[in-house]
């Protein structure tokens, strides 16, 4: 029986009924990854260690975790002890972390098996996976098309059915947008829900880890394990984590869904609009109520983000200097020259561009006008959400203005063209809110995503709404033909 396109729960059943052993499952998964290597969704495989762990699980007397023996892929931005972690950058192309990120450790402690590290936009900076030092990832639905980004490798690996789920990180939409472009489900939790310890930082006040999977239910299974306080991360929330599966199947009658007045869909492809209207109708038949809300400062989200995120990136990426880890330039004149050459050789163009914007925004004379101003506008955006959530339970938008596009077709002349990919996703990072993307139709034969944004710490509510949608539709069950690969 093929293991391709199986969910976590289907694989669990196969393992429990001994249809397949854990070792066989891992071998099949690794073979699938090898057969589909043209997708380029993996940077590094973890063959020996994963087979070894699978053998141990097979020898164990009883299975006491849902994830025991389940293969997962980790975005190559989570540090994994002894397993190369590159952030898809030349500067970290030889980096072997001495420790494992808390989020990954929690998943592995629950019995899951890391089969490899997935390709991504360099340092998570991008929305198309085209900034990776290790090359483009193909969208499983169409060769030569982007999978979205930055968690493009994770999304492609799940969409191609290699693994049932993968980890991602989301700073401005990097879980939700690739999930939408690849026709799968991905959730960005509330800021502080999942530990950031061991995640290589891009923008520390925006970054948050979360799962990508074939259903909302599988996302809930993974998020249950990933969540929780971590004393090693000072921004990790010290609160009890609810069991997200407990409430996932509740009826949604009476659920109040906000539609943002300022997000005009008129400029979008008519098929994107149709998908959105159809999803609204489905929710209405399930008993949800739609209410128009106003987020008056939402148009400031993209400029606010492109001031704050590069500023934090320029600070975080100052640690890459060729001294303690990562690429080190040769033939240097002095220490300063070592820094400049190591960084200039090691970083790609998009990363350099963002470091430079951030350095400018933080430099003397410009700090108040750009960085401080953006943080003030950020508060206005957060206040707008707080007010809106007084009358609604969640907000619904398309995840992305369009669907996957051909390699090289966006952003080459003007980077802002690509930055607008994150138009609908960025604001929840600025406000720290949880948000999920679920597939809800096709536009020009490519998957389109629906985004549900929840109130602070209300992952339970968006997962519930997403699950009920999936119980009443089949978009999440669609599979790419994979004939081109």
């Amino acid at each position, binding site marked *: 029986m093929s293991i391709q396109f199986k969910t976590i729960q289907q694989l669990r059943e196969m393992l429990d009924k001994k249809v397949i052993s854990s070792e066989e499952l891992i071998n099949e998964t690794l073979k699938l990854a090898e057969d589909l290597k043209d997708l380029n969704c993996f940077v590094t495989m973890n063959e020996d260690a994963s087979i070894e762990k699978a053998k141990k699980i097979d020898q164990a007397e009883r299975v006491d975790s849902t994830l025991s023996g389940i293969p997962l892929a980790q975005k190559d931005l989570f540090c994994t002890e002894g397993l190369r972690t590159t952030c898809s950058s030349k500067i970290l192309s*030889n*980096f*072997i972390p*001495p420790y494992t990120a808390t989020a990954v450790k929690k998943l592995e402690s629950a019995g899951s098996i890391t089969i490899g590290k997935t390709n991504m936009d360099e340092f998570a900076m991008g929305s198309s996976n085209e900034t990776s030092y290790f090359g483009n990832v193909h969208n499983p639905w169409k060769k030569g098309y982007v999978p979205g980004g930055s968690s493009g490798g994770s999304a492609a690996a799940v969409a191609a059915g290699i693994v049932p789920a993968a980890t991602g990180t989301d700073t401005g939409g990097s879980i939700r947008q690739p999930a939408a472009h690849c026709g799968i489900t991905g959730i960005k939790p509330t*800021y502080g829900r999942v530990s950031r310890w061991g995640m290589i930082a891009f923008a520390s*006040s925006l970054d948050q880890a979360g799962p990508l999977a074939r259903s909302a239910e599988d996302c809930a299974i993974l998020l249950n394990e990933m969540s929780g306080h971590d*004393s090693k991360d*000072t*921004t*990790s*929330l*010290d609160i009890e984590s609810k069991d997200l599966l407990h409430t996932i199947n509740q009826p949604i009658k009476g659920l109040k869904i906000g539609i943002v007045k300022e997000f005009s869909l008129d400029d979008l492809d008519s098929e994107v609009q149709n998908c959105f209207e159809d999803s609204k109708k489905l929710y209405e038949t399930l008993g949800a109520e739609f209410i128009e809300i106003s987020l008056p*400062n939402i148009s*400031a989200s993209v*400029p606010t983000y492109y*001031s704050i995120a590069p500023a934090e990136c*320029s600070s975080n990426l*100052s640690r890459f200097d*060729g*001294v*303690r880890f990562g*690429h*080190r330039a040769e033939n*240097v*004149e*002095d*220490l*300063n*020259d*070592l820094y*400049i*050459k190591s*960084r*200039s050789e090691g970083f790609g*163009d998009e990363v*350099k*561009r963002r*470091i*430079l*914007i951030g*350095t*400018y925004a933080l*430099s003397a004379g410009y700090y108040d*006008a*750009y960085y*401080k*101003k*953006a*943080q*003030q*506008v*950020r*508060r*206005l955006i*957060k206040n707008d959400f707080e007010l809106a959530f007084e009358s609604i339970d969640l907000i619904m938008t398309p995840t992305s203005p369009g669907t996957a596009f051909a390699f090289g077709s966006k952003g080459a002349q*003007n*980077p*802002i063209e690509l930055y607008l990919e994150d138009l609908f996703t960025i604001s929840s990072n600025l*406000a*720290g809110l949880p948000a999920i993307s679920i597939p809800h139709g096709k536009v020009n034969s490519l998957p389109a995503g629906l985004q549900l944004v929840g109130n602070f710490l209300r992952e339970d509510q968006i997962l519930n709404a997403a699950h009920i949608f999936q119980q009443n539709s089949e978009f999440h069950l669609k599979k790419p033909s994979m004939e081109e690969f």
Partner: protein
Amino acid sequence: MDQETVRTICYLARLQIDADKAQKIENDLETIIEMIGGLKEFDTENVQPLYSPLEKTAFMHEDTENSDNQKEKFLKNAAASNEDYFLVPRVVE
């Protein structure tokens, strides 16, 4: 955004831009800074900056020793080190 400003930012960021890419970078930065400049249209008088969505960060914990000496593990990733230190080009003559 002129060439001199770009040169200064590059120095502050310890980055060198290839000559053939300088004009493109200059144009891109100009475009992006102009977009960010649009924020001045938003009234933020008496609005406190929001540096983190949680507002309260930096939880405190007991200052206790909780790991072994991992010097060797950490030195292993350096391109140049001796048994105790990371090595860099000479900085003091």
